[in-house]
């Protein structure tokens, strides 16, 4: 195996692992902040217990988000030196700004929140978790501005054999990055909503603190419902942007081979990339793809040479599954709210909610596959190929060794994390009136 493939595998593995922890923190920080604010406002001790219970799960998760984040930063230089050299003038800025503007705020005030219960006033304490929530989401903004630039480079010139920034504002307001930010952050909120729903459902199943967890269930359901509707809405805009800027990705997402006007969308479709066609195309909705993409004429994959097409099947399947899951989330959360009054009695539905916890995580990972696999063979769309981006000074054996190291190490950490989350989730909140 060569350095490119190994480095790609390593980046995919470490990014996917990092993204197990990040999405939950995006939404759960907001929910904890909301609960604590409710407590400060009303003095209702239940909300305090809530903030502490969900906050503890947040903290367990946060630690791994941080440490796996350092890996991401290091890897750009370690494995993708030519990429870093080529785009550092532009790509480095949002990363540095993320650390300076958001990450300090997040880490510092999480420390204050964890250890500050008896050291600062309740109002200041609630403020610190709001700052954590703000900073977490702000972090995502800068990272996705950086990623958005890789997807749709703007505000640069090629000079000195690298991309140089000429318009910072264009980089920051890149529609691709901002839509991706909104789509990703909202999907993280869905993850958090379902996390709260699932764990609350578990306790309702066990008839543990029914009143307390019904309150949690309601908060989680409303948050997840609003977020999942917004994710879908933003996703629609995002797809239009993709159609506009990344025609190969869109064609792969829909497995569209020939350029088509008023392109239909097939509900049942099986791609056959080897023969540059689809082996099954059935139940077409006329013009639907063109309407969703916001363009009358959609370019097919055959317009591009095979060396410039992304892997079609993986992109296509990931996209379909992600969208399908997205609709399922809206449906499930609506059902929770409809059945809310007697929900503690519907065992099957509660079990379903418990087992739904991983689904938004999966949807998020699938979304990243669409975004990153769908961009291939480019690392910076239209500018720099992935094969030209790897470190020249690094041997395949080094990457192989580190890949094995990451797999073993991350695997162990993942197991420990799930064990701890499950343990503290099961334990439930602190007993009343300690």
């Amino acid at each position, binding site marked *: 195996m060569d350095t490119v493939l190994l480095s790609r595998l390593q980046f995919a593995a470490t990014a996917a692992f990092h993204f197990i922890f990040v999405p939950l923190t995006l939404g759960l920080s907001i929910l904890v902040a909301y609960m604590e604010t409710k407590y400060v406002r009303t003095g209702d001790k239940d909300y305090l217990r809530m903030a*502490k219970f969900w906050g*503890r799960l947040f*903290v*367990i998760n946060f*630690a791994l988000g*941080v*440490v*796996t*984040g*350092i*890996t991401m*930063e*290091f890897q*750009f*230089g*370690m*494995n993708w*030196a030519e*990429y*870093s*050299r080529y785009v*550092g*003038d532009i790509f*480095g*800025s949002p*990363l*540095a*700004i993320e*650390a*300076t*503007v958001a*990450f*300090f705020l997040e*880490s*510092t*005030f999480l*420390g*204050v929140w*964890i250890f*500050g219960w*008896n*050291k600062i006033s309740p109002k200041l304490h609630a403020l610190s978790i709001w700052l954590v929530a703000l900073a977490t989401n702000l972090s995502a903004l800068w990272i996705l501005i950086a990623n958005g630039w890789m997807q749709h480079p703007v505000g640069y010139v090629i*000079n000195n054999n*690298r991309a*140089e*920034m*000429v318009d*910072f504002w264009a980089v920051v307001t890149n529609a691709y990055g901002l839509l991706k930010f909104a789509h990703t952050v909202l999907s993280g909120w869905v993850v958090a909503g379902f996390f709260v729903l699932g764990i609350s459902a578990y306790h309702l199943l066990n008839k543990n603190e029914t009143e307390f967890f019904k309150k949690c269930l309601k908060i989680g359901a409303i948050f997840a419902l609003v977020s999942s509707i917004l994710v879908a809405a933003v996703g629609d805009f995002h797809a239009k942007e993709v159609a506009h800027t990344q025609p190969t990705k869109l064609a792969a997402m829909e497995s569209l081979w020939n350029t088509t006007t008023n392109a239909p969308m097939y509900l049942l479709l099986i791609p056959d990339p080897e023969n540059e066609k689809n082996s099954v195309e059935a139940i077409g909705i006329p013009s639907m793809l063109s309407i969703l993409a916001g363009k009358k004429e959609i370019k097919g994959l055959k317009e591009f040479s095979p060396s410039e097409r992304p892997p079609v099947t993986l992109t296509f399947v990931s996209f379909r599954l992600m969208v399908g899951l997205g609709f399922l989330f809206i449906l499930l959360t609506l059902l929770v709210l409809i059945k809310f009054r007697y929900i503690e009695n519907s065992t099957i539905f509660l079990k379903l909610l418990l087992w739904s916890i991983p689904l938004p995580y999966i949807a998020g990972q699938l979304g990243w596959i669409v975004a990153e696999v769908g961009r291939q063979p480019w690392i910076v769309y239209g500018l720099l190929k992935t094969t030209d981006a790897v*470190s*020249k*000074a*690094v041997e395949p054996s*080094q990457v192989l060794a*580190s890949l094995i*190291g990451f797999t073993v*190490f991350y695997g162990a*950490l993942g197991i*420990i994390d799930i064990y*701890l989350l499950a343990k503290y989730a099961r334990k439930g909140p*602190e007993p009343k009136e300690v």
Partner: protein
Amino acid sequence: MEFQIIWFILWGLLWAVYFALDGFDFGAGILYPFIAKDEMDKKAVIHAIGPVWNGNEVWLITAGGATFAAFPTTYAYMFSYLYTPLLIILFALILRGVAVEFRPKAVTDTQKKLWDIGIFLGSLIPSLLFGVAFGNIFMGLKFDDSGYYGTLFSLLNPYGLLVGLLFLFTFIVHGGLWISLKVQDTLAEKAMARAKKFWYLQAICAVLFLILTAVFTNLYDNFLKLPFWFAVPALAVTCLLVTGFYIMKNKRGRAFISSALFIISLVFSGVIGLYPNLIPSSIDSKYSLTLFNSSSSPYTLKIMTIVIIIFVPIVLFYQAWTYKTFMYKITEKELKEEGY
């Protein structure tokens, strides 16, 4: 002043602040298994760094990010040339972070023991290896325009190891002083005793460093050209002596502050000696990565300067506030109710 020079200074400053801050929680992590004998002691030491280690480590991420943004070519080559040592540092940092957060949640003795080892190794390895890395950067790395010729073992040369030990002992002293400020009674005395012992080792390494730097590196050239810069290493020496003095006098707060100033002036001594290089080539200086040939465009540097000038003071302000808020002696009562 040119933006490149501003960023060179900032580059040094970010590393200096990083070592001055994360240095003490590394030191605390190294001393931890030796001075904390019972469960209460262990909880106390972890609690001593718990509220701040995370915020401290962000300085590393910022130093990395700033290198990426301001000196992308240096970033690219430094990280890929030093692949293996950085990977080891990375694994150690991950291990330590997780261990500090999860140790308080361990139930069985085996789990506790494993996290204890994690805290120790995760603090020891980066302390030593950061020193080794900087020692080798001072000497220059073996690279030309076709690539890098060193290995992990070529980095472990006598000078690199000496700087590694200097970092290690410095952080141990720094960490010992921090613990002595944060915990009570016997535990604080134990930490103080270790700080005293390791101060001697630190001083010996510092003297050897001053001498051998002349033998193995070109760092002194810049100082000989403009002798007033000798003020910075002289300040480092003074801070080290003052640290020792306050340790003997048992003035812990003052000793800690002068220890931090020692770290900052030590890093700046190296940075001044390196100028205009970020990573010198030991093969031929024409291949060296300098702040002029490896920087971002003036436009990017200008934008980044504006961002940094606005936000770094804000960060310093709220981090200082955090330190003030948590600047108290940890009580036993507090450790008992600690639920996180």
